[in-house]
Structures are given as C-alpha cells and as structure tokens.
C-alpha cells in the first residue's frame, strides 16, 4: 500500500541545532495580538464577578446611571467639571475593586486615536483663531497652499489648546464611564439589559450571538494559523504570507456565512419563528433606585453648573 519512498526512514542524528533566529513573523504577531485581546476579555470578565460597588447594582440601573453621566459629560464645557467627572469614574473603579492601572491603561489606549485626530488640528490658529501661545511657523504675507490662502504665521492658540484639552478630557471621561459599565457587567447580562433601555429585542439577540461567534471564529483563525505553521517547512516571503491571510479571510467569511445559516436552522428546529423572547431575571432594589436617582441628579447638577445656570 505504501509507495517505496514512504518506507524510507531517516535514522541518522539531527544535523542542526536550535538557535535563536530573530523576530517573529507578522502573522504570528497579529495572532498574538488577537489572543492578547481575548486574554483581556477574560480578565475583564473576572472583574465583573468581583464583589464590588458597581457589580452589586442591577444592570439596568447601572446602564441608566452611566448613560446619564455620559450625556452630562458630553454637554459640559467646563474643564474642572470634566476633571471632576473623570476622577469620579476612577473612584467608582476603585470601589468596584478594579485595578486602577489596568483601568487607566484600557481607557487611555483608545484616546490618542480618537482625540488625537480631532483635537490636535484644533490647537492651531487655522482651526481655532485666538491669542498666540507658541509660534510654530512663519509663512510670510500672502502665503498660499494651492488655491487656499494661509495666515501669515501658524501658531498654537490659547483658545485652541483649551478646546483640545476639554475635548480630550471629555472623551476620557465618557470612555471611562462606558468601560466601567462593560467591565463590571458580564456580557450576557449587559446585552440583556440593553433591552430595558429601549433597544429592540432582535438587536439584543444579534449582539449576543455576534459576541459568541466572534470568539468562535477567532478560535478558527488561530487554529488555521497553527495548522499552517505545522506544515510550513521553510519561511515564506511576506507576499506569500499576505496571500495566505487574504485567502483565509475569504474562507472565514464563507465559513461564517455557512455557520450563520446552520445556526438559523438550529434555532428554527428548536421553535424559533422570528419572534425573539428574552428571559429577564433582573430585580431592582432600593439601592438601585438610589443609584439612578443619584446619577441623574449629579448629571443634571453638572450640566446646570457648566452652563452657569447654577453659580458655584
């Protein structure tokens, strides 16, 4: 049955020795990154199980409270009030037994991406005219960039800097509040509680399923990479690697479409007829009502102070 060449066994000793050969390939690094995210998701889930302040609240109460805070933060223009709100989120994180360093890192990881793109141009006099703070470049009179005329000099303005700092602080406070909600609530509970704030059931179900299958598909991607690694005898060129990644992306899409059809069939076979039914087992306690009342009052107060309706 076996061809002759397959009966050959190399009985000689291994002629090579294992030595360090430099950096990892880009596919390996990307997969590591994905797994880093997975690991973080696991860590976050453990925060949701700790007996902390926010973990003890009803998820609906928590969601409404946090949304109130996010709404207030997005209309506040006073920097001091924004710093106060951010400090409040840090205090809530501490009371909820979250590692503060982990929390700050998680929030500030995203801020440079969002705030940086929008806030950085705003500090210059081109976007925010105002008082000169630091001169960046002198262009001379009648400077042009194609058909656009440019100011005589480009400088950072006091008003522009203020706008940028307020914007960044606002993003930080909002993101902190939302991250708090996410890491102190188990995912499945969080998604269910969305329904109580008016999100249609079908979206809640879709979100729940998407979250579950994202993990499954990520696992598939990891397994495909490992299987390829097992069969890769020689290092391949970057182009070859990219071709493989492209092919696998297409395959993952086909698999996910195929899986979605099968999942739908499995749902139908268990009685699903398009009407989503969600079991809610939440119970509001006095402290939950108190939390909502406190968050709503504080948010209103912050907005009123920020708009000088109440003088402090």
């Amino acid at each position, binding site marked *: 049955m076996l061809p002759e060449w*397959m009966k050959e066994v190399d009985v000689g000793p291994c002629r090579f020795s294992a030595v*360090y050969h430099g950096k990892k390939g880009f596919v390996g690094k990307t997969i590591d990154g994905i797994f880093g995210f*997975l690991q973080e998701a696991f860590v976050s889930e453990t925060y949701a199980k700790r007996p902390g302040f926010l973990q003890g609240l009803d998820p609906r109460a928590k969601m409404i409270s946090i949304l109130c805070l996010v709404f207030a933060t997005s209309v506040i223009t006073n920097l001091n009030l924004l710093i106060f709100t951010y400090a409040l989120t840090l205090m809530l994180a501490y009371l909820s037994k979250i590692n503060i360093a982990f929390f700050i890192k998680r929030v500030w990881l995203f801020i440079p991406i969002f705030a940086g793109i929008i806030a950085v141009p705003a500090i210059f006099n081109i976007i925010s005219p105002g008082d000169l703070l630091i001169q960046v470049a002198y262009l001379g009179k009648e400077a042009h960039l194609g058909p656009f005329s440019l100011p005589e000099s480009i400088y950072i303005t006091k008003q522009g800097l203020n706008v940028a700092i307020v914007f960044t602080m606002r993003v930080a406070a909002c993101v902190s509040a939302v991250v708090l909600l996410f890491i102190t609530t188990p995912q499945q509970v969080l998604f269910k509680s969305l329904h109580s704030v008016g999100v249609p059931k079908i979206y809640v179900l879709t979100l729940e399923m998407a979250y579950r299958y994202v993990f499954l598909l990520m696992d598939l991607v990891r*397994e495909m990479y490992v299987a390829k690694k*097992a069969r890769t*005898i020689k*290092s391949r060129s970057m182009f070859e690697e990219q071709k493989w990644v492209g092919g696998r992306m297409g395959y993952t899409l086909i698999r996910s479409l195929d899986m979605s059809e099968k999942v739908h069939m499995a749902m139908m076979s268990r009685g699903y007829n398009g009407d989503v039914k969600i079991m809610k087992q939440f119970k509001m306690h006095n402290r939950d009502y108190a939390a909502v009342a406190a968050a709503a009052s504080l948010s209103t107060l912050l907005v009123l102070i920020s708009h000088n309706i109440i003088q402090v």
Partner: protein
Amino acid sequence: METLFDLRNISYSYVGKIDALKDISLKVGRGEQVSILGSNGSGKSTLLAILDGLIYPTSGEFYAFDNQITEEVFDSIKENDFRTYFRTKVGFVFQNSDVQLFSPTVFDEIAFGPLQLDMTAEDVEARVDDVLEMMDIVKLRDRTPHTLSGGEKKKVCIATVLVNNPDVLLLDEPTAGLDPRTQLWLTELLQELGEAGKTVITATHDLEVIDQISERAIVIGEDHRIKVDGSTLDVLGDMALLLSVNLIHEHMHFHGKAVHEHLHAHKGEHLHQHKT
C-alpha cells in the same frame, strides 16, 4: 532506542488560568507506536501541539531531536535550519480537518509540503499522484477542499502530511467521525506506517483501535496529569483505571480484538457479562 522527544515536567495553561497539562514527563523513542488516552478536555490535543512545536510549555522543558524547543527558536521569521528539519520530520494531522486545508484544490493542498522541500515540479507531481493513489482519492484531485465530505477531508489531511514522508506522525483523534470502512482503512494504514519504522503518536479516546495501532499507551487523567504510561494491553485490561479516568463507564464491556469482527449493535447474539 534513540529518544526523539523528551518532555521534562511540562505544564501548560491557557491564558494563564485554564490548566491543560500538569507536570508531564515522558520520552518517546524512534519507531515507537504510542497512544495518548484521556477523556475530553484532559489535555491530549495540547500535548500533541507541544510535541509539534506549535505551542510552548508554560513551565518545564521540551527536547526534540536533542534540541530544546522554545518560542525564541521556533517562531522567528528568518530561515531556520533546525525548524525546517523538524517540520520535515514531524507531521501533524489535526482533529479539525477544516483548519488544515487551505489551498484552492486537493492537488495544491497535497503539493504544498513537497514544494517547500525544493523538489522539482515533476517530482512533486509524481509524489502527489503516488499519495492520491495510495489514499484512493484520485477522483478528488481537482476538487475544492471545502466541498468534500468529512471522511474525504480527513483522507486529504493525512495525504498532506504523508506526502512529506515524515518520520514522526502525530494524529489527533484520527478516527473521530469516520465511517467504519474508513476507520478500518486508517487503522491498517497506521499499522503499515508503524511496520515501516515510523514513529506514530495518536491522541484518542477510541479504545477500540488503540491495541491495533500502538504498543504503548499513556493515559492522562481528568486532573491533566499522566496516570499510567505502560503497555497498551495492560492499560486495556485495567478496568479500574479506565473507569477512573472517564474512558469507559460502568455499562461498557470489552471483547478484546473480537470487537472488530462483529457488529456491536446486537441483541442476544452472544452473551456478555455486564457490570451493574
């Protein structure tokens, strides 16, 4: 017997918290046929992945071909002679066939390995044709892997590995989901490879085939530690052990090799002594 794999006090845990293997020490010699037995989740697949240098122990040391296998050595982007040698000599058949098949056609899939061995196009084609014929899958040559049935996919997966003529074959649950005829075919193939001097390590919880494909059995318990490392026949005869590691339950029974010679779904065909 020359030692190919040497595992010293190896433990592995996923994302630092879910234990998969604990304190595993074992050696595998050249030409051995070994079964790794254990219930679902005991760590069999993890052990195979470590043996293939795909993941690295969280603690402990793993040596293959007298070299320590570490991430720094294996996961580099640069050309690496030892890794090339290792990947040529060791073949891994995954449990999930779908992850292993990534080329547009069955032919391309099987040719992937030999092409990396710097063989000429004619040699590659001849070798692929040999394997297609040996595996009785010539008719699948130009098919797309994702259109194949489960049994066909498994055959193609095995073909993709055998085509490189590895000296060591690692198989993860190879008989799972196969029809009886394909199972028998696979058992005979593994026997033949063993007779040719290949080292065959199979992770399975299918007790019906292990005495045919291995002389040595390593049993991993539900606590992720090695319970027994001994002869396959001794392991199969130790009912208390098999019960304790969740490989059999109290209503199962053995007929020795007779199990492969008659249908198991029978009533009154012959007498059994069931444990109650």
